[in-house]
């Protein structure tokens, strides 16, 4: 596999499982920090009443599409939840939880940070970073 292909593979690995792109390149510390941080934020988000946003529907408004795009950064976790229909509770019960907005922010930030880590894994494999 050529350098660019391998770099893309690392990026996709890193997207699917946070830190996997770094771990596959022997960057243990960075990989573990990525895994713990992203999945930790995701878990806290759900514990405190957050949810994923559907990226295929504008039923909740256009802004929710952006939220959904941020959520996609959570990789396989989002994909699996999307397929089995879990974690997308939009019934309105969650809104009553005082930490609902904060929890949603944590889930979105987890996705955005994973996008950043994914690009970092790409850069390392492409030789743009030591």
């Amino acid at each position, binding site marked *: 596999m050529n350098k660019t292909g391998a770099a893309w593979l690392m990026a996709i690995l890193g997207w699917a499982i946070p830190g996997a792109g770094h771990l596959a390149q022997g960057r243990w*510390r*960075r990989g573990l*920090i*990525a895994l713990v*941080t992203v999945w*930790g*934020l995701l878990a*806290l988000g759900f514990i*405190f009443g957050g949810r994923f946003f559907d990226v295929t529907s504008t039923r909740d408004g256009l802004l929710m599409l952006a939220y959904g795009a941020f959520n996609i950064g959570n990789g396989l976790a989002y994909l699996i939840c999307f397929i089995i229909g879990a974690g997308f509770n939009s019934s309105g019960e969650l809104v009553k939880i*005082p*930490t609902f907005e*904060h*929890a949603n*922010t*944590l889930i979105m*930030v*987890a996705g955005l*940070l994973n996008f*950043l*880590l994914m*690009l*970092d894994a790409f850069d390392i494999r492409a030789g743009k*970073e*030591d």
Partner: protein
Amino acid sequence: MHFLLMIVFAAAVGLVFGCVGRPSWSERLRYGAKVFAEFTLVGLLLGWLLYFSP
């Protein structure tokens, strides 16, 4: 609880920014701590400013 979640958010962002933003671990630690402090302070400041807004 809201403050605690903000601290968690700032710590997570500081960790990741530190990891991807600097080449050596000592620099990463310093930069991560700086990002954490900035997010926390700005969050507190904005919180107080919004408290006084109608």
